[in-house]
């Protein structure tokens, strides 16, 4: 196949090119890398926050060529800029569609140089979302007898590469790093999954509720993200609790619903999973309706019912490459450690959840 013919086909039949993707190399992910420096006035000292992840940390917004400027890690960088009175370079090395193994291998390991700069102070990562999405898609398409192995495989892979990612960061991030933090996963499509399967359980012979089936698996993933964090010197931003529980006491148990959902250091997997899947199940809400009070709610999820909402503009990131830029912070002071929009968008909430662990000094 000569170049002339390939060029003609690509120009005249772009759809055929995409057909070719599936046959050539199973290319199904998209690197979306962004660097944004929060440029604080009156200082030239600059520190770095490095974020590795998939489409969540990428700031994916339903475009293949751009992504949100203020995705969660960059939101956190804005908080850090105010806390340290310094410029903060937010570097996001992300790959939309990547499973945990891919994020580990091609981002954390393959692009480790970013966290090896002496200016690095914070390293954060998130993963496993695509393991979950793919397992969910696979399970939903099953007929006959339900095969739960796809869910267990996703869980095991998640655990393996979360642990490996933490070990690798511990061994390779610059010694100046002051904070290592993972974000766990919210449940995208929580309401949409409240349907019956096509397959039938081997024991009961009945179809199963998708949400009831998936929730414990996600809970186990999230448990091990936070538990490995505890074991390996990381902090764990509990995005599941932040997104899925209300910021008021909806069930009258004396606790703010979102607080009650949080991982408790030292609890067992069984305890955590039981709390999430059973005891506190009635307090869970789809993050399309995040209640910040009993009379106010915000939509934390974009129209694809998967990715977090965000505020503001976008940057080039995707099929035409990535981009970098610099600009003044949107907010320069934070009352009570919170920006005016801290709870109004998914990425703002996740970024705030990261920021609570920011060390007082660099």
């Amino acid at each position, binding site marked *: 196949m000569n170049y002339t013919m390939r060029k003609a086909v690509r120009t005249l039949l772009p*759809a055929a090119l995409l057909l070719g993707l599936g046959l050539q190399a199973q290319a199904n992910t998209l690197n979306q890398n962004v660097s944004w420096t929060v440029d604080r006035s009156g200082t030239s000292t600059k520190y770095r926050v490095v974020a590795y992840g998939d489409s969540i940390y990428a700031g994916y917004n339903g475009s293949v060529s751009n992504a949100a400027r203020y995705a969660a890690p960059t939101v956190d960088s804005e908080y850090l800029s105010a806390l340290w009175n310094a410029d903060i370079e937010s570097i996001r090395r992300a790959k939309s569609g990547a499973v945990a193994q891919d994020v580990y291998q091609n981002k954390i390991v393959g692009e480790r140089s970013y966290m090896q700069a002496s200016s690095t102070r914070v390293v954060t990562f998130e993963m496993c979302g695509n393991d979950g999405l793919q397992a969910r898609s696979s399970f939903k398409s099953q007929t006959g007898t339900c095969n739960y192995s796809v869910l267990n495989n996703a869980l095991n892979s998640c655990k393996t590469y979360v642990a490996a990612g933490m070990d690798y960061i511990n061994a390779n991030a610059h010694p100046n790093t002051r904070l290592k933090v993972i974000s766990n996963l919210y449940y995208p499509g929580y309401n949409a999954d409240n349907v019956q399967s096509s397959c039938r359980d081997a024991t009961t012979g009945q179809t199963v509720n998708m949400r009831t089936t998936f929730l414990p698996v996600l809970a186990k993933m999230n448990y091990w993200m936070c538990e490995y964090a505890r074991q390996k010197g990381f902090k764990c931003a509990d995005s599941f609790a932040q997104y899925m529980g209300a910021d008021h006491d909806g069930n009258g148990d004396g606790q703010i619903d979102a607080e009650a959902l949080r991982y408790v250091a030292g609890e067992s997997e069984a305890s955590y999973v039981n709390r999430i899947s059973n005891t506190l199940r009635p307090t869970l809400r789809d993050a399309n309706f995040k209640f910040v009070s009993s009379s106010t709610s915000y939509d934390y999820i974009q129209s694809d019912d998967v990715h977090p909402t965000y505020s503001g503009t976008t940057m080039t990131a995707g099929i035409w490459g990535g981009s970098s830029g610099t600009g003044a912070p949107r907010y320069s002071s934070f009352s009570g450690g919170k920006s005016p929009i801290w709870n109004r968008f998914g990425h703002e909430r996740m970024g705030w959840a990261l920021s609570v662990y920011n060390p007082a000094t660099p």
Partner: protein
Amino acid sequence: MSSAGQQAADPHPVVDDDGVRWLRQPGSANWRNLVLLVSVLSGFAVLVSLLHAPAPRTEPSAARGLPAVPADPPVPISTRGPPESVPPPVPTVAGPEPADPSLPPQWQPTTATADDWPSSDLNDIARYISPADPEPTAAELIHALRQTGEYGGIAAFNPPGTSPPLVGIAVPEDFELPPGYVRHYQSTDDGQPIEAILMYAPEHRFYDADGNEIEIPEDRVVPADRLPAGLLPRAVEIPAAD
């Protein structure tokens, strides 16, 4: 990281009000209707097969150890990922990628890092799209991948618009909500806030003058003919994409 690897580098970058230095991207044409793709699918099967590049000389990462895409109608992903007993992963880093003779000179990868365009990552869709190609929407890309039988990666995403913003009656910020109502805020996929709409609070029950429970809509959006006193029936407008 700049996209300096692109062919059509802009010698006169624009600096916007935020101090961001923008490199202009090649212009993109409107994406063709994929109905044309479906209708000529079989006719181009042979042509597409001619695009098949030589197999890569190395497999840089086990991340791409996915089953081959079947030629028949899409089959669901059966099992992907490692078995339950997973050996400890060994970090590997790909060496410099050798030249691919099937690619034109300007598309040859020059280094092994992900900073360069075109991407050296074999599983990056960007690697297979040149500046001369029109830009697909995410929905088109997801659909096209699924048409090839690929349901992993971004093909596992829902397309935009799967759960669009709810349309309802605007609730001014200074309107005092009666019990049982909620002010719900949304935003567009391109980051624009949407004015709050009026919704019923979950689990709150409403009764008529006779004490009969009033059924509320499943989506909890308050219809224009059932507004609380003092609220004007003004529909919220969803901002157009920037």
